[in-house]
């Protein structure tokens, strides 16, 4: 490919420009996390804050640590539950002989596409009927439920790559299907499974709407707390900035380290990157 120096520079400039637009708003908010209340509302704005000023984070952590903990518990719980339920099902659908396999797989895929809002009132009623409303387990169950289709579908594509000969050999040696799953299929697709679990973790960490009506004062997750910062009263932008940094840290790390998998993950594995 021959290209002139000028068009090379133009391409680079364009790439930098697009990237800048993408990250500038988040960076600007992140700078605010190091500003005092006064600096935050100063006109003209304080462009470069004092990065040794960490009091916003300290205040936020001491005051809202329970909510951050709620977020972590719900996210980890949902990820764990979703994977425990997804792996055997994905293995059965991808490897074992199942009647109506394609129909079941399509049904699972289509539940992934359904909007959670359409299940909002029924879930609210269901959880209040069983006395779980406002509890962390309610959110764990709901988050796991809505992420399960994704976890099953993408895990299936990893299990399909496990060589059939190995499974056959394990079966000949007298392994039960459960042993084939835990000793052959899962170890061989570990990196893929880790990717799926990380995706579920981020989706659950980012979830807001379900938490909005499933949580109560004590069980509020961090996104719900952040949303309550933007209200009718006085808005403390310095705390909000610090909260945004905390909330966005896992997804940003995810984007940086998992970049290669994001396209295939977001298209349910249909598009390989």
């Amino acid at each position, binding site marked *: 490919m021959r290209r002139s120096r000028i068009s090379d520079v133009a391409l680079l400039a364009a790439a930098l420009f697009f990237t800048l637009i*993408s990250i500038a708003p988040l960076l600007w908010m992140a700078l605010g996390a190091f500003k005092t209340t006064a600096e935050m509302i100063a006109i003209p704005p304080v462009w470069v804050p004092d990065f040794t000023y960490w009091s916003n984070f300290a205040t936020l952590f001491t005051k809202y640590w329970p909510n951050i903990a709620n977020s972590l518990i719900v996210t980890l719980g949902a990820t764990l539950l979703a994977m425990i339920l997804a792996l055997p099902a994905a293995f059965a659908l991808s490897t074992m002989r199942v009647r109506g396999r394609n129909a079941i797989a399509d049904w699972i895929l*289509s539940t992934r596409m359904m909007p959670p809002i359409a299940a909002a009132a029924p879930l609210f009623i269901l959880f209040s009927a069983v006395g779980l409303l406002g509890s962390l387990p309610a959110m764990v169950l709901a988050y796991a439920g809505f992420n399960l289709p994704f976890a099953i579908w993408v895990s299936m594509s990893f299990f399909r790559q496990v060589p059939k000969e190995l499974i056959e050999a394990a079966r000949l040696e007298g392994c039960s299907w459960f042993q084939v799953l835990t000793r052959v299929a899962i170890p061989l697709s570990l990196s893929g499974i880790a990717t799926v679990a990380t995706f579920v973790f981020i989706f659950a*960490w980012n979830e807001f709407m379900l938490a909005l009506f499933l949580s109560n004062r004590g069980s509020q997750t961090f996104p719900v707390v952040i949303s309550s910062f933007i209200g009718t009263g006085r808005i403390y932008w310095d705390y909000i900035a610090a909260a945004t940094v905390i909330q966005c840290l896992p997804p940003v790390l995810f984007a940086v380290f998992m970049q290669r998998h994001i396209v295939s993950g977001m298209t349910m594995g249909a598009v390989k990157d």
Partner: protein
Amino acid sequence: MSSIDPFVERGPKATALSASAPMRRHQPRLWSGDRFQTGLFLWPTCLFLLVLTLFPFIYSVWLSLHFVRLTALHRKVWAGLDNYASLLTDQMFLAALRNTALLAVSSITVEVVLGFAVAKVFYELASRKWVNGLRSAYLVPMMITPISVGVIANYVFNPQLGVINQLLGAAGGSPVPWFGDPVWARISILLISVWQWTPFVAMLILAGLMSIRKDILEAARVDGARWWHILFRIEIPSVLPIIMLAVILRLIEVLRYFDVIYITTRGGPGDRTMVLTLFTYQQDFQYFQVGTGSAAAVVILILSIIVTTFAVRILRRIENA
């Protein structure tokens, strides 16, 4: 798909065929006869999915056929299709329907055009190692927490303190009222949604561009094709299925767009940025009108099912290609 896993699709009918292959003589014993185990693997998960997703959807339909308040569920009165009829005369609902359609058409159009441009830039630079770093940074908006996207939007679009109006002022422009103005509020939501989702569309198209075989491009160049020939005759036709997929997946996301609007305009001013999800949420949890809310939910559900039907087909086709 059958080329990848030759075993799974075989029902009883195929046994004769597989038995003829000497390697697979033990197949019936190895690959089946475990109804119980298969069930154990599949049923708990399916049951969970039924209770947590399918049941709520069906229950929504049932609720939508009743006059019922969230605070008095036991006093349920059969309503037939009355809730749907009242939706048709509800100005707020009609606005939500219009705005959702408007947001879908405008944001997806901009995202596809802009996304293609971005993808092309990254594609041309793909041979450089450091471009991976830029790509990671570029796709940050699609991964960060949507509620934070809304919070950041509140911050930068703030009429007095917001950095955008400050920069506009410094450049000699006049401040823009953003969320406070009926027209600007819609433009703001469009801008946020485009900011948030163009990376997704761009990265999809980039994956499509990368999968074009290099020898085809070389052959075209050798034959004297200019860049616009390559663009219109090879690149755009090749990524068209991917663009279709992007449009479908984005439609699904627009139908569930909630967090950002909830935290920025909350549907206002008036009904100018009201969307179906927010309308449903407010009916259910602010006015406790679960009947009306569920009827709106069913409308979203039907729209989603239509989109999903296409989505499942396209996903399967691209995956099998």
